[in-house]
């Protein structure tokens, strides 16, 4: 976990002071609504349906127990006792008062947290794999690079007023759990023939109204040039990205218009001037940051396969949970555990102040006092001793974190939707809940197997519906809420965008529609085929026929 030094701390304290004064001037009428809007957005503050929504940055998903307790305190003191994990690993509060936000930021600053650039047309929070540093298939730990990029993005003077928002994701593993191909910039490590580290650089991916899988424009960027290259990309985008139409303002539109090849040439033309400059990264800086991410004090342990298998025998519930909610760890005797924030009947990603305190406590007792948030809106304890797994499971069960559904149909990614968000065309949380209720039989859920079901309440796509194996999009038809279904999206390596199934459905029909889609899969699948595999083999037509036939 990166620990602030006096510089990092001063920057966020300066920000609290600045935002306190901006808020004061706004409330005194010295700043107009229009003038204040971009300022508050760059501090994560939206004006929503009922109250402002404050989005707090969780840089690349990393939290300590101490920070988590502060998040609980804020939920208690300034909100209605809830917090929400967003699809970009951040934490959102739906009920703070605008006047209180400077005080909230001041409290966050005491635990090295902030809300800087969590919204607005600027460089946003950097995201990565929630299993960074512990995954068995990791090539490099992406977190030092995330922190280096985070510092570069923070109050970058040239890129504070971009055409549109800008999201960077960094992957460090063989598989891509950071969904880098649907980000404005995606980075992943690569070694050249000489064994030197570099990055493959993708630009122009993104969801929203015009979903695009990005294009790789550089197959080997030497690590020293990383920040200069980001400067070059952003300069090209800042100067030439469209500003006349906000729906065409993302970098993906520019990259498409120019073609990735021409875009890459423009970046290279900038690099001719920037390469070798003072922004060139140094070994010393990478070391300075990387030392914050060294392994915790792992014990020398052995894997406990036999013992765990025996526990599985005795406790089928434990077996089920272990199968879904744990991931192999790079260190023998350890395991990474995902706490499901998707029990039926709770808005996906929501947790209470008491649960946050409990998570902080569990992290302290089971996982070196650290935890992570994931873009799937769950929480991870990354370093749990296998010998403690059963005890942890018992505690998780007690506090509502042990729903054994990670990666399954009911582990739904879902935006806050029309219940909270003023952009939404339709509600999304009740749809998630009705589907969770329909698939509440665990045996059936396990039989269906891995399936990403993502729901967005509007085409801004915060619920990542384009990359769900099944995606659901809320649409407005003459003032009524309808839902469009797409199939075949994927956010992992070789990402793909879903294809629309056909005309949209009424809210009440959604559980039936999903059930029909699943029944086609169950009938057509071959052994070991996931839903997405069957879909890719047989195509969309069998699904279409089943779902729409019943309507006649």
């Amino acid at each position: 976990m990166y620990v602030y030094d006096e510089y990092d701390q001063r920057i966020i304290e300066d920000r609290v002071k600045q935002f306190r004064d901006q808020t004061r001037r706004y409330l005194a009428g010295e700043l107009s609504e229009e003038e204040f809007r971009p300022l508050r957005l760059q501090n994560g503050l939206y004006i929503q349906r009922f109250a402002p929504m404050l989005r707090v940055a969780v840089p690349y998903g990393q939290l300590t127990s101490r920070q988590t307790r502060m998040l609980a305190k804020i939920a208690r003191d300034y909100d209605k006792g809830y917090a929400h994990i967003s699809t970009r690993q951040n934490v959102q509060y739906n009920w703070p008062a605008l006047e209180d936000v400077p005080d909230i930021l001041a409290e966050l600053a005491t635990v090295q947290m902030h809300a800087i650039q969590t919204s607005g047309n600027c460089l946003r929070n950097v995201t990565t794999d929630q299993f960074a540093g512990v995954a068995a298939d990791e090539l490099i730990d992406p977190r030092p690079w995330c922190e280096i990029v985070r510092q570069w993005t923070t109050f970058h003077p040239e890129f504070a007023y971009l055409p549109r928002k800008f999201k960077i994701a960094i992957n460090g593993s063989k598989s891509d759990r950071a969904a880098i191909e649907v980000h404005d910039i995606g980075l992943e490590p690569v070694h050249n023939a000489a064994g030197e580290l570099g990055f493959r650089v993708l630009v122009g991916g993104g969801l929203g109204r015009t979903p695009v899988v990005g294009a790789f424009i550089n197959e080997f960027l030497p690590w020293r040039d990383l920040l200069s290259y980001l400067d070059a990309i952003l300069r090209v985008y800042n100067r030439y990205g469209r500003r006349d139409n906000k729906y065409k303002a993302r970098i993906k539109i520019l990259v498409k218009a120019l073609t990735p090849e021409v875009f890459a040439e423009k970046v290279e033309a900038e690099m001719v001037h920037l390469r070798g400059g003072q922004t060139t990264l140094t070994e010393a800086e990478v070391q300075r940051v990387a030392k914050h991410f060294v392994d915790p004090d792992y014990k020398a342990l052995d894997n406990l396969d036999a013992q765990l298998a025996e526990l599985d025998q005795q406790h089928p519930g434990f077996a089920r949970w272990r199968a879904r909610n744990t991931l192999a760890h790079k260190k023998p005797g350890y395991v990474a555990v995902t706490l499901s924030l998707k029990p039926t009947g709770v808005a996906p990603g929501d947790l209470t102040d008491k649960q946050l305190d409990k998570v902080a406590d569990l992290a302290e007792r089971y996982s070196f006092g650290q935890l992570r948030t994931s873009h799937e809106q769950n929480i991870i304890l990354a370093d749990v001793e296998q010998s403690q797994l059963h005890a942890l499971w018992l505690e998780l069960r007690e506090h509502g974190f042990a729903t054994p559904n990670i990666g399954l149909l009911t582990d739904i990614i879902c935006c806050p939707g029309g219940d909270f968000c003023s952009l939404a065309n339709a509600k999304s949380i009740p749809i998630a809940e009705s589907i969770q209720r329909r698939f509440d039989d665990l045996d059936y859920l396990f039989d269906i197997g891995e399936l990403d079901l993502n729901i967005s309440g509007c085409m801004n796509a915060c619920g990542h519906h384009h990359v769900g194996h099944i995606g659901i999009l809320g649409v407005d038809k003459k003032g009524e809420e309808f839902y469009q279904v797409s199939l075949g999206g994927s956010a992992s390596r070789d990402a793909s965008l879903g294809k629309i199934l056909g005309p949209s459905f009424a809210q009440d029909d959604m559980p039936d529609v999903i059930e029909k889609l699943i029944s086609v899969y169950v009938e057509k699948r071959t052994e070991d085929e996931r839903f997405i595999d069957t879909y890719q083999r047989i195509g969309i037509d069998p699904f279409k026929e089943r779902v729409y036939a019943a309507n006649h």
Partner: protein
Amino acid sequence: MQRIIKNNQIVDETWHLLPKDVTLDELTNCDDYIVPLQLWREHAHALKARDGGLGVWLDSDEEAEEIGEDVGHFQVIALNFPAFTDGRSYSNARLLRDRYKFTGELRAIGDVLRDQLFYMARCGFDAFAIRPDKNPEDALQSLKDFSVTYQAATDEPLPLFRRR
């Protein structure tokens, strides 16, 4: 008379900012003018021959490269912010300072408000024509918004990681 911020002080404006549709015959010989890019394109020779001071201004969709080789002819270059949310002039400023080594006055004009001044100063602006309905005295305070910065920029050529 408009007052502007120049080198951290508020001074009276002495330059005439000319609109895009100005023609050469509207200029006197001795006044100090900031001319639109188009006039410079068409009448560079005549403008250089005048006795008065010469500056040029670029709109946010005009490119620094166009005057890159000519910066030595200008005492002032002004970059327009048609809206404070239009960030293109930040990049133009850095190109003029860092790449074309412009050392004269670099002025922000247009929708120039105090909450953007810190970023502008980092990108090389040293003069700010604050929007007339706002108080430049108040705006001066925002030049001190942050006491630490991470990135290399025109005001500080070393990134924090080479200084910490």
